[in-house]
């Protein structure tokens, strides 16, 4: 079930008016929230108790954590060392407050009451939020559109 709230009061209100490049495997994972740098967080590795690795490519550094429960969380850091995208896939949704950092409240406001009970697709100035899936199979990605490195397809964020 994809519960997203709210009903039909909305109707009344509204309608009358209306290629992958080579990745280099490195060690020493860290963990950071969207918009922050990798030194900003340390506590969260414990939170996920996950195996982790860092992959470097021309355009970004990817921190990948795989929780022992099977959910994979990926964080993409730009050349400025800041996280410009996060993505997850697996049987559980990660802790979004932790992962989205200062953007968590923005997400909550934007995800608020609406009539659709299905995937979340939110496009705000500079911020794109996408979550889909169902119980036991969740998928999501959130990125700062203005910080995605030039030439990187957002399709690569997954």
């Amino acid at each position, binding site marked *: 079930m994809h519960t*997203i709230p709210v009903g039909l009061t909305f109707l009344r209100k509204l309608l009358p008016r209306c290629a992958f490049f080579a990745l280099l495997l490195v060690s020493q994972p860290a963990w950071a929230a969207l918009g922050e740098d990798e030194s900003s967080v340390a506590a969260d590795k414990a939170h996920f108790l996950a195996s982790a690795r860092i992959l470097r490519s021309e355009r970004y550094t990817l921190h990948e954590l795989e929780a*022992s429960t099977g959910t994979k969380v990926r964080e993409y850091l730009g050349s400025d060392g800041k996280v410009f995208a996060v993505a997850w896939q697996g049987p559980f949704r990660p802790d979004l407050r932790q992962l989205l950092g200062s953007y968590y409240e923005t997400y909550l406001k934007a*995800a608020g009451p609406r009539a659709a009970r299905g995937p979340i697709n939110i496009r705000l100035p500079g911020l794109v939020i996408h979550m889909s899936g169902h119980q036991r199979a969740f998928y999501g990605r959130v990125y700062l559109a203005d910080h995605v490195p030039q030439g990187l397809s957002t399709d690569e964020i*997954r």
Partner: protein
Amino acid sequence: MHGPRMRRAGWACAFAPLLGIACSGGSAPVPNTIAGPADNVAELSVDYGLPGIGYLNGLFATVTVCVPGTSDCQSIDHIVVDTGSSGLRILGSVLTLSLPAWTDDSGVALAECGQLFSGFIWGQLQRADLKIAGEQASGLAIQVIDESTYLVPSDCTGFDASTAESLGANGIFGVSSSLQDCGTSCEARLGPRSVNPGVYYACSSATAGGCQTAAVPVAKQLQNPVQFFSQDNNGTIIELPSVPAEGAPSVSGSLVFGIGTRDNNGLDQAKVIRLDSGGDFVTIYTANGTYSPAFMDSGSNGIYFLDSSTTRIPVCSDPLSYFYCPGSTQNLSAKILDRDGLVTVNVSFSIANARALFAARSNVVNVVFDNLGGPSAPAQAGSVDMGTYFDWGLPFYFGRNVFTAIEGQATPVGAGPFVAF
């Protein structure tokens, strides 16, 4: 899909203008048979939902819960029948019974941050007997949706769907193909520490921080209630009539328990789509051959698929941008493949302009639509967004009998999990 009927429907549609009947697209839903009253049949309704709140394409049933082993019972209506989750969840604010706590092995009360993909439902687990139609599950763990007994832990995150207003219903009857809502992942431990990813909590006090993430054995988790029925316990069928192109204020149908256990729940000619361990199959969008992982979900209120740059169907303007708004109704098709790619079924569906569907009429509010849909992913500038789910929500169920077989439970065509239609 069933030969003779299909031909009949096709013939009728050819003469639709003369006969004064409506045929949607080239694929008028084949009239399906909806089971009449029986011990294994509960009534379904798709209607406006809770007064003053409302619900689009909400599939509801009434359930009866009782204090275990007693006749102290309560019937609760407008419980969403959800093939996308497992477990019975009831709003604490409508529950008048006093139910015993569901505890871990050391007697500590358990609570759950139920993950619904975009939101959560918080509340403690309690023990109850469930009765629906002539079926009963005794001593079942249910979730009582309630944020006052135990405070929502800080790591239970996402949109809070724990109120009548946000849920839009009095509860959820989760009858997916999974036995539990969580499974083995929630019993995982690494050394002394639970790695349960914020689903189950042991609650020792009502104060902040009183609930701590807990590993919970599968047997103690929230269960798909159907498995505990003394018979008819291998799955369900959702049987709903077709809906006119402009929608309807309400329709009724049947929730049938059991698959091939009686003369009213046989698979007959239904195509069996076996599911992978995540409950998924594959869907290929015919127009451009795009592959997506896919699932059936009666708790999704539209067909949510691909993105508007891939489908070339525009989305509605805000605040309806979760839906597609084509200039005219789009008659589409897709192939559904089982997990091994051995079974392929062609499916036709329509997507109408959501804004036009919702346009107010003088004296009737249509809330039931078989042609409501939206994008599964945000549109990508100049690229196709692959890998997002194809969500076959409630519109798919209209005019069909859709079977959901529970994992590991025997049926005449082998054990679940599968869906069939």
